[in-house]
């Protein structure tokens, strides 16, 4: 959603997040550069491996489309995996977490229409 931080910095933040939260860092993945591509994300979510979670750099790397985003949450919860967002220091593992996360998305998505000047 318009955020861009160099990949190696994102990786450092993610590693630090894992360290602080005692999560085992096993694999780094970067999404394809095409707009609205979530091919890598889908691949990881649907993978039946021992991996039990995904750490994102930021929650604003999730798809902008709400329905698509909700499918991802459902999929994650169904597969008993967790997602984490480093910048926001947020863990998503329950339906309540989804509501909280979506509130932030909702506010963020109307901010471009709000007063911006000072």
């Amino acid at each position, binding site marked *: 959603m318009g955020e861009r931080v160099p990949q190696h910095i994102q990786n450092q933040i993610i590693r630090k997040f894992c360290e602080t939260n005692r999560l085992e860092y096993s694999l780094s993945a970067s999404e394809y550069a095409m707009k609205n591509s979530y091919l890598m994300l889908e691949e990881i979510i649907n993978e039946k491996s021992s991996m039990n979670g995904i750490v994102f750099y930021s929650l604003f790397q999730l798809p902008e489309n709400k329905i698509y985003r909700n499918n991802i949450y459902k999929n994650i919860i169904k597969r008993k995996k967790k997602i984490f967002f480093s910048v*926001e220091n947020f863990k998503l593992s329950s339906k309540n977490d989804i509501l909280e996360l979506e509130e932030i998305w909702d506010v963020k998505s109307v901010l471009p229409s709000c007063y911006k000047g000072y």
Partner: protein
Amino acid sequence: MTSYLDKKDIHLSKNFFKKGYFIQKVSDLKSLKTLRKAVVNSLCETIKVKMKKEKDFDRFLNDIHNTIKIKNLNNTRLNILNSINSSSEFHQKYFEVAKNLLFSLVGNELAMQTRVNLSIQLPGDASSLLPVHSDIWSGDSPFEVVVWIPLVNCYSTKTMYILKPENYKKIHSKFKKYAGKNSSDFYKNIKKNVEWINIKFGEILIFNQSLPHGNIVNSEKETRWSLNCRFKSLYSPYGDKKIGEFFKPITIRAASRIGMNYSLPNLKK
């Protein structure tokens, strides 16, 4: 100009404009005591002493410099911070304590900082000073306010200072003269005009963080303990501190929820 603010709000606003801050007695003393208890509890755990009785909290906090060494202070502070910030109840109580003031001065759809801060200023400690600054100069939005909650009585050098709006106005127009100088030079110039906040436990301070403020070495015989947290109107402009990473929505209203989830019906096949 149309304004339907009630008398109480107008009174608060006038004071806030004029002084740059407002101090109010906390009506929800129970919530305030819960905040102080959480801090004391975590402090006792960190320094491994038995939990104190509530009647002894004030003395215990004020005299903590007899127990904690300056070199261990930051670790203690970080431990307490992690503990209080892992509790959503703590955040809610913090809001409850300031709710009326916030609704009057900021609005009723609010964003709250995701982490409450804690200041501990031991007597004579020059390592935890906050040199004169305006929060806006380091990336905060001028639409934010700070709710500052003392856990002990704060006075003289055991408190913070703020430059009054009228004095800031004079400096603002002559700011060029500070080019190439440092914050100490700036402080020297404003020193005689700053106001030292005199506040007791049981009161809260809400202040305009765009006004220069800070503290100096605490030369009283007691330790200062205070909490601070920023609030802003949810849909007002954000500075570098964004929604999600620094602020969280805490009072979204029904009409906004409906609006945010509305999409026009689609006629395309």
